[in-house]
């Protein structure tokens, strides 16, 4: 039975945000909490949660309108609302008695066959169902979301022995397709997968730092980027999640794990942390944590705590020989003969060996563990991938040299060579009995990384590749830093057009980077400006315009499939596609004015053509469309979701949204193949534009913004050039202008603006700081 309607009990941080995300997926969701004391409004908790979430940043809702699908109430008056819910999630206090009391009320109100799950992170399925009716246990499982649930891709699902299989399947399928989660099935063991290993890592790192005199900054420098974890490392991560969470989770793990479990053995609550929590230094949500901003300075100066004295001091960015000399080799870092190398080895060897000892106790295979750590802790590689990188034999040897036990699974990897291998283009992982097993992708999942393992690209240069993704569809992949766009990419677009045009059906533009593309390579552009290479700049602009135009008018369909940021030129390439299949978390925008220029690869053109609607101004003339586009580009608006991108006009009504990133390429490919039936490329359009009068009207509208300092002097210059482009330059409202005219105007505007020192200052500032200069 597919899940249509859901309910969440408990409107706290997690409960509220889960309800918001179910609403994001287009499903109605009931959100109930208790009736608060001393409040006239019996629904205050759930209503307050929705109101708060509408203000939260990062936003739990993808679109404010999604909040309307959350039906708020309380568990005294509104239990009947659970009657038609297919899935009821409990997210109340981590206490078995409280949770079971809620379950009894849910059980009395829910319909037969509905599924109940708990968002517990610490309590076992068997504890939660103990004493509950068998009919309840059959419908009950654990769905452990990570915070914040909209953005964290991991969902751990733990079913008990009595849970009916189709309940876990229905929830997993809903979470996968609708909520975009990567579902990892785990066993009913304490802390499930990610928190079991992650907590060990944190506890080991804090304990060893205190023991070995490693500073907070050193620990984070060693255990962040070098191991493939976020740069917050361990102490920064504790600040982020809250110091008080550590004893909460840690104590519960210690209590439920056998006494000889390595985590139970090393678990400790250092006096410093206890006193920090007691005094309200709980991290970013409190007065500060291991780091804070100097409260006596208004210059946002970062301080770090001295683990020995407990005093804050100015934070230092440590320059560690171990990191510098290991030059990106984790093995060299772990072998480095100083106290920092020894520290890194101590923490990581413990963590990796612990993980190796936990399979198959916590999960069936190493792939599940690695995926959980990648998606739950944002590690680039999971523990087994790290061991492969280090060399299983080397790692086992070093453990043995220290007289430490080698887990059987690690032994098996030593015997076979590694945990993973690539065979026949498939990535296999080591399973039971030392045999490799192939990961089977669920139906509707197509990963470019899988395709890339199977063979050679159809075309390739230093910045981009063209891959055959099957059924006559090619995929254009960018692979520059941040997927910035350069002339190599434009050249490969050109070659791709020939290859796809010569017998293939369609082209998809997609990559698996964190961001689809952050736009033009600003460093290269600035270099050209600084040496005054104006003909080169003009050629680069024209080359991009021609490449994108060729995509638009190609004799086959082109589908863009972005995820993450698609900015500037990255947005413009999408605007030229026949259709876009966007990941729900797509952050799309034309941000050129931030660096003092206007969109020059057809962004102005395509936004105007969309705004005007087939080139014929409707009621009200062309100005309503022009002013909307002017505002979107002039304010450098970036969508905070694919849904918002649709509202801003970057996506069209017919463009698709895919919740799960792993399904994006398959959806885009299906879209491309559907378009390929009877495909006819678009006809070039002509438009009527107001010319100078329109530009003046825009100028008048903007003037007030400068007076009230909402716009800077150079903003006025840049958006005036934008106005010239959007209103058609020197034309008349009665004249039909070909769409190519926009391209000429874009080029002229860019070349003029790039000659201005204020624009150059903006470009330099953006390159140096990553933030726009307000000059």
């Amino acid at each position, binding site marked *: 039975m597919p899940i249509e309607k859901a309910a969440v009990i408990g409107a706290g941080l997690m409960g509220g945000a889960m309800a918001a995300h179910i609403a994001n997926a287009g499903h109605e969701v009931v959100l109930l909490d208790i009736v608060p004391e001393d409040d006239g409004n019996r629904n205050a908790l759930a209503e307050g949660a929705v109101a708060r979430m509408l203000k939260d940043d990062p936003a739990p809702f993808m679109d404010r309108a999604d909040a309307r699908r959350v039906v708020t109430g309380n568990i005294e008056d509104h239990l009947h609302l659970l009657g038609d819910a297919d899935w009821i999630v409990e997210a109340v206090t981590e206490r078995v008695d409280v949770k079971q009391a809620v379950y009894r009320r849910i059980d009395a109100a829910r319909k037969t066959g509905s599924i109940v799950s708990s968002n517990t992170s610490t309590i076992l399925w068997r504890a939660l169902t103990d004493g509950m009716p068998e009919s309840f246990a059959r419908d009950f499982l654990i769905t452990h979301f990570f915070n914040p649930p909209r953005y964290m891709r991991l969902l751990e699902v733990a079913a008990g022995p009595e849970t009916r299989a189709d309940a876990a399947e229905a929830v997993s399928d809903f979470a996968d397709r609708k909520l975009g989660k990567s579902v990892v099935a785990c066993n009913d063991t304490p802390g499930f997968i990610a928190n079991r290993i992650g907590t060990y890592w944190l506890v080991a790192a804090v304990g060893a730092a205190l023991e070995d005199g490693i500073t907070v900054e050193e620990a984070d420098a060693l255990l962040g980027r070098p191991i493939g974890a976020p740069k917050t490392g361990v102490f920064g991560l504790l600040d982020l999640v809250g110091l008080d969470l550590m004893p909460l989770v840690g104590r519960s793990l210690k209590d439920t794990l056998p006494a000889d479990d390595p985590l139970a053995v090393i678990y400790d609550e250092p006096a410093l942390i206890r006193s920090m929590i007691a005094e309200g230094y709980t991290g970013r949500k409190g007065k500060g944590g291991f780091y804070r901003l100097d409260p006596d300075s208004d210059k946002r100066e970062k301080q770090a705590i001295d683990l020995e004295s407990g005093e804050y001091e100015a934070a230092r960015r440590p320059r560690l020989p171990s990191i510098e000399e290991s030059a990106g080799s984790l093995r060299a870092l772990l072998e480095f003969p100083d106290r920092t190398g020894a520290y890194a080895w101590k923490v990581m060897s413990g963590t990796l060996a612990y993980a190796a000892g936990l399979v198959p106790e916590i999960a069936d295979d190493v792939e599940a563990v690695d995926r959980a750590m990648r998606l739950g802790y944002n590690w680039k590689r999971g523990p087994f991938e790290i061991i492969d990188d280090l060399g299983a034999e080397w790692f086992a040897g070093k453990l043995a040299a220290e007289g430490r036990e080698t887990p059987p699974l690690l032994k098996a990897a030593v015997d076979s060579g590694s945990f993973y291998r690539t065979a026949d283009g498939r990535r296999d992982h080591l399973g039971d009995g030392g045999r490799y097993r192939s990961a089977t992708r669920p139906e509707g999942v197509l990963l470019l990384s899988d395709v890339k393992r199977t063979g050679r690209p159809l075309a390739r240069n230093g910045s981009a590749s063209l891959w055959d993704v099957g059924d006559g569809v090619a995929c254009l992949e960018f692979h520059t830093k941040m997927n910035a766009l350069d002339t190599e990419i434009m050249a490969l677009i050109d070659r791709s057009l020939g290859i796809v045009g010569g017998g293939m059906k369609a082209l998809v533009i997609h990559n698996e980077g964190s961001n689809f593309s952050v736009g033009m390579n600003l460093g290269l552009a600035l270099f050209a400006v600084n040496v005054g290479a104006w003909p080169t700049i003009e050629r680069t602009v024209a080359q991009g315009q021609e490449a994108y135009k060729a995509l638009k008018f190609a004799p086959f369909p082109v589908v863009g499939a972005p995820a993450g940021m698609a900015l500037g030129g990255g947005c413009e390439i999408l605007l030229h596609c026949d259709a876009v299949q966007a990941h729900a978390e797509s952050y799309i925008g034309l941000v050129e004015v931030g660096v003092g220029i206007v969109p020059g690869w057809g962004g102005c053109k395509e936004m105007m053509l969309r705004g005007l609607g087939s080139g014929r101004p409707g009621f*009200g*003339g*062309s*100005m*309503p469309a022009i002013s909307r586009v002017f505002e979107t580009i002039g304010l450098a608006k970036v969508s905070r979701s694919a849904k918002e991108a649709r509202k801003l006009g970057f996506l069209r009504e017919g463009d698709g949204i895919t919740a799960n990133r792993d399904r994006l390429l398959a959806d885009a490919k299906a879209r491309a193949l559907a378009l390929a039936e009877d495909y006819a490329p678009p006809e070039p359009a002509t438009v009527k534009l*107001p010319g*100078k*009068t*329109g*530009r*003046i*009207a825009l*100028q*008048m509208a903007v*003037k*007030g913004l400068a*007076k*009230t*300092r909402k716009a800077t002097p150079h903003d006025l210059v840049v958006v005036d050039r934008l106005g010239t482009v959007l209103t058609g330059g020197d034309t008349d*409202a009665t004249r039909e202008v070909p769409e190519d005219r926009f391209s000429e105007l874009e080029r002229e505007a860019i070349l003029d603006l790039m000659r201005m020192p204020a624009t150059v200052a903006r470009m330099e500032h953006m390159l140096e700081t990553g933030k726009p200069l307000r000059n």
Partner: protein
Amino acid sequence: MNHAVIAGYVRSPFHFAHKGALVEKRPDDLAAEVVSGLLDRTGVDPAEIEDLIVGCAFPEGEQGFNLGRIVGLIADLPISIGGTTVNRFCGSSMQAIHMAAGAIRMEAGEAFICAGVESMSRIPMGGFNPAPNPDLYERNEGAYMSMGETAENLARKYQITREEQESLAVASHARAAQAWDEGKFSGEVIAVETGGGTVDRDGCIRPGTSAEILAGLEPAFDAEGTVTAGTSSPLTDGAAAVLVCTEDFAARNELAVLARIRAIAVAGCAPEIMGYGPVVSSEKALARAGLKMADIDVIELNEAFAAQALACVRELSIDLERMNIDGGAIALGHPLGATGARITGKAAQLLRREDKRYALATQCIGGGQGISTVIEAA
């Protein structure tokens, strides 16, 4: 000689544009209800009306076509009555009154409905497809200058402090609120019907407005300036209508005459200080009436901005105790096309209510103009 008199005045409640109770009310429907309300209140026989003159500052969209005729047809006026639309921006419906008064002198009709309307929610200032003349703009930017900027110009030119502006705004709200409390608007405000129910009260007045609250606002038009949202009239939806007829007609039809129109004038001034317009037009109108400002007992001067109103107060030596005694546009709102009919009708009602002799209604107009009407007790 035929004298033109004002023999009736009504208006709709005024509400904030974009968020008030009249947001979903079409301006043509709103104006038609006000015209019908005027006919009901005065008891005049509609068949006797010569023309319906409707003032509107942005006559396009729902205010487009020939709004004057459309409103007459919506209100089911006899088809024998004409209908015209007149635009003098904020002075539009005072201009409607002037046109009626002129026609009466020409013996080109005996009775006229002079109305005005603006839905600033539904038709944006500047219109939907603004197309300013580029050459004029480059030669004379003031022609299209934002009204807030002109108010800042006057504040600077006349050294009008922010505190002075705010004290006028506080008084405006206090007077309007008190007038409502004392039932003094019952003679002019008629209830209108909306999808959300009957609307019978003004929506813009903030009775608790204090100097402290206003002092906390950011400048609205110039970061270095003194004009805030609190010392500007709000964007407003509303309509007003006045019955203008000959004295004979009023007597014959037993209409209650509020005031006689004594003199009218319009005059231009520099566009970048458009708020100064009432000075030049009022000087002309007073001279034509053979009166001095000291003779005027009741003054309705539109508060487009406090800075602009206070500049006029200074230049014309207006006694603030006689000006806008039931509150002005900062509190009541300023639906552009409707304001001229409102302040002229209001001045006429006040002459009668307060038992005074002379009144002046005057307002500034974007682009640099003033318009003034001097009326006297009938």
